Structures are given as C-alpha cells and as structure tokens.
C-alpha cells in the first residue's frame, strides 16, 4: 500500500495526543473513551460555553480552536461537530498538519439531499488536495485496544488481539469487537469506516493485510468506493490471511437501506459472490457466522476434507447433525470396521448407534470412554473432521469431574490430532454455561448449534480449498 498513508495510520493507531472537536454532554462518548488514553494527552475543542464545564470536569483541557492546542504535531483528531462545520474543522486540521482525522459526523451523501451531497464533495476534494487522511465520515472511528485507543466507552483496554475489524457500520463494529472478544478472539485493531470518503475500504484492507498483529480480518461492507481497487486489494490480502466478509444489502430492500446508510452503490449480490470466489475471501450472512467462522479458522486445525465424525448426545441430534452437514457440503460417512470393533465394547445397549454419528445415549459415562471415542474418530481414515456435542443431554450428574476431564481430552485431541476438532454446545443447562468459559480459555472452538457448526466447517473447508488452488 501507499507508504505515506501507511505511516500516517501507524501513527494514528498509536497517537501521541488526541484532540476531540465538538463532543457534547451528557454522554461525552469521545472525550470519555479518550480521557484515560495512556499514550499521551487528550484535548477538547469546544466553543459552546455551556459544554465547557462538563468537559473540564472530565479533567480534559478545552480550547477554542485547534490552533490553540500546545502541541507542535497533532496525531489524531476526532470530529463531532454539525455537518456544516466539518469543512472548517478540516481546514484547521490541514493547517495544523494533523496526521489522522476521524469524522464521527453524519449527514452527507447518504441523505440523498443536495446539501449532504455537496458537503460530501467538498470533503472529498479537501482531503485529496491537502493529502489529508480521514476516517469516515459517518463512523465510530478507530480503536487499538492494546494501547488504550478506544472507540466507545464500553470498550476496554486489553492485551493485544489478533482479529482486525473493518466495518461500514458503527453498530456492527461494536458488535464484532465485543462478540469476538467475548468468544476468546480479541481485537488487534478496529476501524468503523463509515462512508470512506478519504481512506477507502481497499486502503484499510491493505493496511490490516500488512499488519503483523492481525491474523484474520472480519469485515462488514455495504459497498465499496473504488470497486476495482478493492477487488485487487482483496485478491492480494485474502491470499495471505483469511478475510471474512459480511455484505449488507444483499436484497433489493437491503440495498435501498444501504444507500441511505452509507450512500453505497448497489451491485447485484451475485457479483459480490463471484468476487469472493475469485479472491478466496469468505462470504458470510450474519455476525454470528463471523464469530463461528473466525473460531474455526483461528482455533482449529486446517479443514482439508469434508468427512465429519460426530459424537452426538442422542439419536435425534444424530439425525439433525447429518441433515445440517449435508446442507453445508459435509458428509457423515460410515467408519472402518476396525473402529466399529473398538466401539462395540462400549455400545452394548440396544437402541443407540455407533455407526457415525455416535449416539451416546446411556453409554458415555466416564471421561475415559469419551477419550476412547474421540481417538477412534481421530484414527479412522474415513474421517477428516471431529465434532462432539456438549449439551443438556450430556450432563453426567453422578460424576462432577466429568467435564473437567473431558476438556482435558479435548485439549489432547486438539494438540495431538491433525484433524480439526470442534465442540458443539446445545441447550442452556449448567453443563453448557460452565464449560463455555473453560473451552474459551483453552482455545477449543465451541459453536452454539450443529447447524452453525457445520456451516462454519463448510466455509472453512471452502476457504482452505480455495487457498490451495489460488496458491498452487
């Protein structure tokens, strides 16, 4: 990517100072989320006398103009003023040679009215002429939680993560940050890209593509400003690390909503699908799916085949997981005779089956038995992927240590087998809620239904297949 822009973004993600222009009470989202920034001082610019006492109460020094701020170099400015004022603030930023600007203000081309469109053009031209790097407008700015650069007050400074989040919606940025983190996949950097008038989607993608901390990129897109450039960037980055894309506006109604949200152009979704195929990017249909796919890609071994071996809690689950698998291009094949010989010793009750799925009703009573079943699947040459259900019907109330020991078995399968392994959690009883945290700590991918699990595995298989083709 462009070396000058890369340098600006490096500084912007690790600013030595932050200026918030025009933030208001009672929420002061921008001032509050920047007040504790450990990397340097936070300043405010606000003219409204009524707002100033509240700002000073936060311990933040207020100035009447960006020019009054006692810093030779300003690294990061957040703009939260009414839209008509934005060009004036941008002018100050240009004069003050600010490194990176983020514009929270909305009301531009997405309004489809003349003033908004006009202002949008003005902003584009100002940024272009002065070579000013701007995030947004119509966005929730950027975050780098490791250094304490946050984009909302509920976000926390935390250890460095490995997921890069790029989103054209502030809400989906927030959801992805909190959900990915809660599921054991902390964020490296996030960008709420908004209308992307200055720094475009392709720039962000290339930046995170080169960012060493970022191992996987999760995106929410409604459209792209420069489609050809985006396609080229995606082709380049997706060949290096997984890029998961949720495209909003897949239907006619959705596309109409997208033009009012971020002024995005509508292209038939079939073109987007084609692009995902061509580039090896992973197209998904919901934020849940982003979580699931990211889990499989970052926590499980590469998925190189589609034959699933399943340990299911009951006969009913065995049927549904088989249906779900077929929907996502996975099969649940018969096992080798040698595997059946081993399983026969355990499956002595009439009514359950060990033909795959292994229906463990009444037969899985000790963690040793669970370990044996897992290893049968790990050793069976007909199986490429292993999934085991932890659900309401797999509680073993007479053995309080059952799941502590099972999780040890899961870890051992994860470490010792080349086959990807996932836990599927079903139901809401104690066993599910209690194991959830431990599984997360141990880095064992656990997905909250067979349908979601098989869907994520199917996507992962397609991803690895495409990578092999593209990089061959």
């Amino acid at each position, binding site marked *: 990517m462009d070396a000058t822009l890369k340098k600006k973004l490096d500084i912007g993600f690790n600013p030595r100072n932050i200026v918030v222009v025009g933030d208001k009470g009672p929420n002061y989202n921008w001032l509050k989320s920047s007040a504790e920034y450990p990397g340097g001082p936070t300043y405010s610019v606000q003219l409204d006398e009524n707002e100033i006492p509240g700002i000073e109460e936060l311990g933040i020094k207020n100035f009447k103009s960006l020019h009054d701020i006692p810093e030779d170099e300003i690294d990061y400015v957040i703009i939260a003023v009414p839209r008509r004022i934005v060009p004036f603030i941008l002018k100050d930023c240009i004069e003050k040679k600010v490194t990176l600007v983020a514009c929270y203000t909305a009301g531009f081309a997405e309004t489809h009215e003349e003033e908004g469109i006009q202002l949008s053009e003005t902003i584009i031209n100002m940024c272009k002429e002065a070579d000013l790097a701007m995030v947004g407008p119509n966005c929730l700015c950027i975050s780098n939680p490791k250094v304490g650069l946050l984009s909302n007050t509920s976000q926390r400074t935390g250890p460095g993560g490995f997921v890069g989040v790029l989103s054209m919606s502030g809400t989906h940025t927030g959801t992805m940050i909190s959900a990915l983190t809660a599921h054991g996949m902390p964020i490296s950097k996030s960008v709420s890209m908004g209308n992307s008038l200055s720094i475009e989607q392709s720039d962000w993608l290339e930046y995170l593509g080169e960012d060493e901390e970022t191992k996987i990129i999760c995106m929410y897109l409604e459209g792209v400003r420069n489609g050809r450039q985006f396609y080229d960037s995606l082709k380049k980055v997706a060949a290096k690390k997984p890029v998961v894309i949720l495209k909003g506006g897949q239907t006619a109604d959705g596309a109409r909503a997208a033009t009012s949200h971020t002024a995005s152009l509508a292209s038939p979704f079939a*073109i987007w699908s084609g692009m995902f195929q061509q580039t090896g990017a992973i197209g998904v249909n919901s934020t849940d799916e982003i979580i699931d796919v990211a889990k499989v890609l970052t926590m499980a071994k590469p998925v190189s085949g589609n034959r699933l071996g399943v340990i299911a809690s009951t006969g009913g689950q065995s049927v549904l997981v088989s249906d779900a698998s077929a929907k996502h291009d996975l099969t649940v094949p018969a096992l080798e005779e040698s595997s059946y010989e081993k399983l026969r010793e355990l499956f002595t009750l009439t009514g359950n089956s060990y033909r795959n799925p292994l229906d463990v009703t009444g037969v899985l009573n000790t963690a040793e038995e669970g370990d044996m079943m897992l290893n049968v699947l790990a050793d069976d040459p007909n199986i490429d992927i292993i999934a085991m259900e932890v659900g309401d019907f797999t509680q073993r109330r007479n053995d309080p240590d059952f799941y502590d020991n099972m999780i040890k078995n899961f870890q051992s399968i994860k470490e010792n087998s080349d086959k990807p392994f996932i836990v599927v959690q079903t139901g809401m009883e104690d066993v599910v809620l209690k194991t959830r945290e431990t599984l997360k700590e141990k880095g064992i991918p656990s997905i909250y239904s067979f349908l979601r699990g098989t869907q994520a595995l199917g996507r992962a298989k397609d991803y690895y297949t495409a990578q092999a083709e593209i990089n061959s």
Partner: protein
Amino acid sequence: MTTQSIIDQAKKEKRLILTEEESKTLLADANIRTTKIAAASTRDEAINKADEIGYPVVVKIDSTDITHKSDVGGVSVNLKDANEVGEAFDTVISSAKENAPGASIQGVTVQEMADPGVEVIIGLSKDPQFGPVLMFGLGGIAVEILKDVAFRIVPLEKRDAKQLIREIKGFAMLEGYRNLPAVDLEKLEDLVLQVSEFAWAHPEIAEMDLNPVIAQADGAIAADARVILEEESQ
C-alpha cells in the same frame, strides 16, 4: 473488416449497438467461435450466400433498428435448400415490416446453423462499482425466470471460468441427460476465457450478449451475438 474499423464505422454513424454481423466479425477477429454469417439485401443474394455457407442455414432480419429479432418474426431456422431460403427471405422481411413498422431494414443475414447442444448465455456488462463483469447462465427459462446465473469480475482466470460454469444450479444439464450427450466443458471454459480476454482488451465495449452459445459435445459456438459500445467512445 477489422475490429477497429467496425467500431470506427459505428461511431461515424453514431450507433452504439452493432449489428449481428458486425458483432460476430468482432468476436471472430478475437478467435471466438461464431456461426458463419453473411448479409444479403435481395432474395437471390440470400440464396447465393446460403449456397456458399452450406445447408442447413438460418435466415435473420438485418436491421439496425431491431434488436430482438425473433420478437418480430424475423428469424427462420433449419432451412435445408435454396427454395426454403428464398421463402424465408420473403417471410422474414414481410413480418419485420408488419411488426416493426418504420424500422429501417437492410435485408437479412444468412447464417450457418449450429449443431444441436445445450443453449447457454455469456454476457458482459459494466458494473458501476466493479467495472466489466461476465455473466454465465443456461439459455431460455433458466435465465429469464429462474435467474440461474453466476458472475465473475473480468478478467477471469482458468479457475474462475471452471467454477463459474459449475456454480449455476442447472449445471447438471451440461453433464448430459436423457439422450443429450455431455458438453465439452473445457471448450466452453475456453470460450468464457476468450470472451473475458476480449472484453478486457476493449474497454470501449459497454455490453455484450452471446445468446445463445450452443454448448456441444465437441465444442461451443456463439449462434447470436450483440455488442454495444460505450457512450463516451462516440
């Protein structure tokens, strides 16, 4: 005529839509297989051209004002001899005059009749975000009603062409069914790649419609083609 002189000629006449003959010449110039075509303005000329091309032939109305030829009764297929070609010439001209009054009619085109196969469509259009994109689908109902089509961004690579063809729901139709043999998928992929390459090399082309392309057991050939030029190239 070469590709450039055809485009120049159309520009001079302020036409964006090329005739079928021009479109096919353009494609043939790029080594894309199309059915042989010759224009004829009289009945006798039509018969002469048919003799040259070899029977059976197709006769289609030739008018810069008529783009949907079969809608005006302007297409007659499977003509086996001079007599049938002569009759077809008269019928095609009179129905076009009746159904498209006021259209300027240059005559007819006489065309080689492609061997049977599965009708598919290869289309090219310019997307406002992504630029030239290529569409593939099965002909007829599949594309018009079921919208069973798939897209790729131009230019395509081998892998893209291969997956594109297999992505449509109707792909099984190309693998042979009942008494229809499987089509030569590799040749069809090659044709897709040639169209992509051609479109990429000619940004002055706004739209292309190869409809139908006949996918046969031993090849693929465009039986009809329409090229539309970009407005700014005028």
